């Protein structure tokens, strides 16, 4: 193989790192059973590549080469740790005996590597870890984001985030959580946690404008990876839901960062490619008849995406989808959303009756969106003083600045 110029080579290695480090890390975690050790070994292997490839040329199969180099580094690492703590002596011996070339070759086969990645995702999202630990660990180990970047996105200090990761890793170690995808009977329960983490990452990026786009992209990337690895209906439903919501990112706020509601959005700004992909994923998930809450939410987003305006939206179908959602996952917030859909197809009086019933149950008494939805319906019915009172209540409860500005604006219009 011809020798490449050094700058070409470092670019090639950089690209290789970007595209392959997730898979290589997952394989190494599988082989070594230890996240820290796997991470260190992988980075040392890449450093070795930078050192050696300029002389030796790029190996024909870079990934197995890197995995194999990392294995040797890991054995060195374990030996070193053994010297310090007097533990893990057996592991080094065991690894040397077990990790022959055949195992490495086997491990570098595409299918096995994809399994490794799935195992790593399930480990990072293990229900024994606190939710914030699951998120931090997934973003760092599966997506490869540095601690400082994750901390910035979640508005915590790097030290706080680093501690979450350290604690999560300690739980994995102490409880000896195995690197595996759960067996089929417990899969759906455990898959729920994985999907929840991905959706939490997406939502963290949904409201925040600047750092958010990055996180939402990362969540969609994870969603795609999961669909490839585990094409279950709910996995497709979640990816569909994220794509459909993401398709409106540009239309959702003005250049000044002001919130724009669905009915006022310029629908020409919606991303048609993301909508088409989201709809097709959702349709596949629905067709399986084994779908859950993400798929139903995606279906609702799809109905909105297909409409050219609020008026021409199929609100009756949206109401039916909310009925379905309430059956699988009853929640006052879903009831509130259903009430808004009912108001759109049966008139504001019907919607208001449902919302007042909900507010009387007090579960949503401190939820600003319940009051702003009520205010909007009162406004449409010409009950202006009631509308004002509800907007004021909503404003007092709203936390985020764009929402507060939006509500204040609405209130201003009524005076």
């Amino acid at each position, binding site marked *: 193989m011809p020798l490449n110029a050094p700058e070409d080579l470092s670019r090639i290695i950089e690209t290789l790192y970007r595209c392959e480090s997730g898979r290589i890390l997952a394989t190494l975690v599988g082989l070594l059973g230890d996240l820290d050790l796997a*991470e260190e070994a992988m980075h040392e292997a890449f450093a070795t590549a930078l050192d050696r490839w300029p002389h030796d040329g790029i190996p024909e199969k870079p990934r197995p080469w890197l995995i194999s180099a990392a294995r040797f580094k890991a054995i060195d690492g374990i030996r070193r740790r053994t010297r310090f703590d007097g533990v893990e002596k057996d592991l080094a011996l065991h690894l040397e005996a077990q990790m022959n070339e055949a195992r490495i070759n086997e491990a570098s086969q595409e299918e096995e590597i994809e399994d490794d990645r799935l195992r790593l995702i399930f480990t990072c999202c293990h229900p024994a870890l606190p939710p914030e630990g699951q998120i931090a660990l997934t973003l760092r180990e599966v997506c490869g984001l540095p601690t*400082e970047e994750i901390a910035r996105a979640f508005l915590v200090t790097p*030290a706080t*985030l*680093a501690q979450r990761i350290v604690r999560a890793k300690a739980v994995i170690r102490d409880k000896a959580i195995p690197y595996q995808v759960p067996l089929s009977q417990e899969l759906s329960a455990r898959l729920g946690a994985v999907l929840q983490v991905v959706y939490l990452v997406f939502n963290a990026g949904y409201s925040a404008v600047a750092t958010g786009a990055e996180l939402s992209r990362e969540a969609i990337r994870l969603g795609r990876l999961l669909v490839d690895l585990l094409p279950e209906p709910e996995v497709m439903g979640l990816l569909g839901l994220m794509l459909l919501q993401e398709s409106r990112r540009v239309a959702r706020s003005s250049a000044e960062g002001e919130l724009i509601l669905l009915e006022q959005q310029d629908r020409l700004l919606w991303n048609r490619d993301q909508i088409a992909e989201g709809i097709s994923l959702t349709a596949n998930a629905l067709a399986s008849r084994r779908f859950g809450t993400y798929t139903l939410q995606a279906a609702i987003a799809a109905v909105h995406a297909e409409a050219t305006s609020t008026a021409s939206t199929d609100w009756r179908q949206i109401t039916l989808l909310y009925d379905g959602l309430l059956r699988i996952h009853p929640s006052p917030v879903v009831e509130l959303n259903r009430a808004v859909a009912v108001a759109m197809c049966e008139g504001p009086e019907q919607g208001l009756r449902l919302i007042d019933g909900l507010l009387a149950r007090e579960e949503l008494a401190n939820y600003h969106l319940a009051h702003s939805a009520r205010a909007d319906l009162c406004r449409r019915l010409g009950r202006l003083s009631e509308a004002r009172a509800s907007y004021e209540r909503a404003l007092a409860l709203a936390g985020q600045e764009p929402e507060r500005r939006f509500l204040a604006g609405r209130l201003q219009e009524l005076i």
Partner: protein
Amino acid sequence: MKYICLGYYEPAKHASMTADERNAMFDECFVYDDYLRANGHFVGGEALQPEETALTVYWKKGKVATTDGPYAETKEQLGGILMLEARDMNHAIQLMSQHPSLKYGTLFEIHPTFDMSGMIQESEQRRGKVAAR
């Protein structure tokens, strides 16, 4: 990214060790330093002489003042600093958590460094303007 690791220890505890124990500790620590160096993680570092050799300089009533010893007095004293090259805070923790001196009672504060190059550049521009006047 660079991290400065401040290692604190209890001098009394070290004084109570036998010569063999102390040698064992130093050997282990130097082996680990070599490992960090070999892998590009060791940017620099020095051990410090005992606290009584330190001096604190500060500004008081428009004049420079000094006192003997370090600024803050604690039971532990700063025994050395290590400048570490790590990918992120968690990597820095990973590297320092393997430091052999931990088991001899040392504790490390890990501080991410602040990249001042932008501030330095701005300052140079300000100073350039002043000189050009």
